[in-house]
């Protein structure tokens, strides 16, 4: 049982850990942790504080459920163009790029399909007609994006949830590295990145709860440096006539991807990058392995 050093007003807990000092908090609907290889509480507190602040900032700025942010404004513009700030412009450029290189599989406008699909383990599939009418609102190519203006068709929505957490890990680590070059690992809900290998132990030991199997079990990941992201949530599905419909929806058809893996983990240089690859691998269904092999990245797939 780690000794708790203190609970900070910024809503995180600092505690002693085998790697040094750990900060724990909740953000983006996930348990988050920051491991800092140091015995210096002040340093650890500074590092954890920037990570927490960055996670909360990204959550507030880009979460579509928050009102009064630009995403909310864009999604409720009713066909009007909305001018965005520089950071969101970079993100929209990035998702635009991902849409094009994935032939439309990576699409931030696919979120409206959730209005028809509720993965509650029941057999309530949406009707073909329902999905077809929603598909009028899906497709990044229907949006007009030209810096600095984004214009959606009325009723369309964008959702950066697919890369928000990964982007937050990369950003938080960048900011943390400005404070210290000590080994740091950032883990936001299973998307994690370490700036370098720890010096006191051979590798980072991180317990993550992979919700890949129907019965989640704690899983200890051992890594030195780099970024790891995992896509998949086997608990979210529908079952109809013995056929399983997983929660991964193909934005080109509006339907659940068949034979999607239960989880895909990808290793790379940044979470933003591996997050896109693991999401795309899920969307490739039975082709997931071959897709990741073609990318030449280290990966682990559970089916």
């Amino acid at each position, binding site marked *: 049982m780690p000794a708790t050093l203190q609970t900070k007003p910024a809503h995180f807990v600092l505690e002693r850990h085998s790697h040094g000092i750990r900060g724990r908090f909740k953000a983006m609907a996930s348990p988050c942790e920051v491991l800092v290889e*140091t*015995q*210096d509480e002040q*340093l650890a507190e*500074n590092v954890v504080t920037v990570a927490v602040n960055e996670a909360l900032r990204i959550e507030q700025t880009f979460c579509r459920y928050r009102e009064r942010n630009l995403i909310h404004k864009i999604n409720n513009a009713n066909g009007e163009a909305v001018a965005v700030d*520089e*950071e969101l412009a*970079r*993100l929209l*450029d*990035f998702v635009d*790029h*991902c849409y094009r*290189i*994935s032939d439309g599989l990576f699409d931030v406008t696919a979120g409206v399909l959730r209005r028809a699909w509720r993965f509650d383990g029941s057999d309530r599939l949406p009707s073909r007609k329902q999905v077809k009418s929603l598909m009028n609102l899906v497709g990044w190519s229907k949006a007009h994006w030209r810096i600095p203006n984004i214009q959606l068709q009325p009723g369309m929505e964008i959702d950066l949830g697919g890369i928000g957490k990964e*982007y937050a890990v*990369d*950003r938080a680590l*960048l*900011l943390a590295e*400005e*404070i*210290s*070059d*000590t080994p740091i690992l950032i883990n936001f809900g299973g998307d994690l990145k370490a700036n370098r290998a720890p010096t006191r132990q051979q590798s980072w030991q991180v317990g993550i709860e992979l919700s890949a199997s129907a019965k989640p079990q704690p899983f200890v990941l051992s890594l030195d440096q780099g970024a790891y992201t995992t896509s998949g949530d086997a608990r979210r599905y529908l079952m109809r006539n013995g056929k399983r419909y997983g929660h991964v929806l193909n934005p080109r058809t509006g339907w659940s991807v068949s034979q999607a893996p239960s989880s895909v983990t990808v290793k*790379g*240089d*940044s979470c*933003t*990058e591996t997050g*896109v*690859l693991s999401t795309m691998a899920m969307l*490739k269904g039975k*082709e997931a392995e*071959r*897709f990741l092999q*073609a*990318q*030449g*990245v280290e990966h682990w797939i559970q089916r």
Partner: protein
Amino acid sequence: MKKHAFIASTLASATCTLLGASNVLAAMNSDSLWEFDSAFLIYSEPDRVSALEPTVSAKRETTNGGSLFFKGVIDSLTGTSANGAVPTDRAKAFTRPSGDGNYTINTGGTPLDDTYHDTRLAISSDWETPLSQTMRLALGGNISNEFDYMSASASARLLKDFNQKNTTLSVGLAHAEDTIEPEGGIPEALGLVSEAEFDNRANDDDNSVTDLLFGVTQIIDQNSFFQVNYGLTDSNGYHTDPYKLVSLVDGNGRPFGDNSDIPSVIYENRPEDRARHSLFGRYKRKLDSGDMLDLSYRYSTDDWEIDTHTVDIKYRFDLTGNRYIQPHFRFYTQSEAEFYRPFLLQGEGLPEFASADYRLADMDTFTIGAEYGWGNKNNPWRVSLEYYLQEPTEPGNKFGELENQELLPSVDAILLRVNKRF
């Protein structure tokens, strides 16, 4: 079976654009435009000079990739300084530099002028701007003021990058105009120290200094670079220290006239021209362990026949948690000026130039100390403590009573410096 397109590399470069740009963006939003640096130095020679020196500087990057820099220094000196006269076996009285009264030096003591006190205020600025992708221009200005000294200078430096910015050549020119207005006026060169002499003094004199500098900096690899500079300094004007004296000793090695306790001393005099060449080399390397080695050597020679060699070694041990400790060693040696005279003989003709200032004697100096730094990039602290020893070589031509005296005792000093950036 489908063939999958290779998208990982284009995805990686898009991610770089996203994260790299947002990082710059965040830096622009969160950091203040000006970066301030403050330092406080305490210098103390036991029984002699002590100095307090606070420094504040401010730097900002300009939008075109250049920078602007300002610095202010206040120096406050108090204490005593060797006046150049020889010690002897009888107490003796010296006229104060102002001509206003005397101070007495006891038997065997190094004659120290007890009126040594000063406050200096210096302000400098530097502006650097890119002229093209590979060329930069830096312009600087400096004003320094003491109660008896005023200096104003301007400088220009042109830097040109070659070889994908791995090689930088620089050429610089600087010019300074100094005015000295000593307490009591400008004493008569080699004039006998007496109260009457004060009536014939000029108020002030001046000096101008021109520097020319050529430099090459070569980046060897990611972790090391080498730098070589050549400098030519030409100085013309009043170089004499108006507070320094030279003793006239008799055949017994004593600096007195007939049965008087007033020592027989004259004011020093130095040449009006001085040209110095200097060569400087530096090698700095970051080691795999994170430690840093910083080596430098300087050689200079001038037409006063002062040749100097300086070796400076710093080694920075990288400690965990953003801390470091950096031991420092410096060795300096110089040969004496051709007109250095620890004393002159009564009854012999005076040379054209003479100075007994120990700073112009054959001398070795040693600096040993360490700097400790902690805090992160945004909140760094540095503290350094150094011991500084000046060891002049005792003159070899002593005789009579002079043989019983130490003319050039060692001078040691402690330097404590605290530095904080914010």
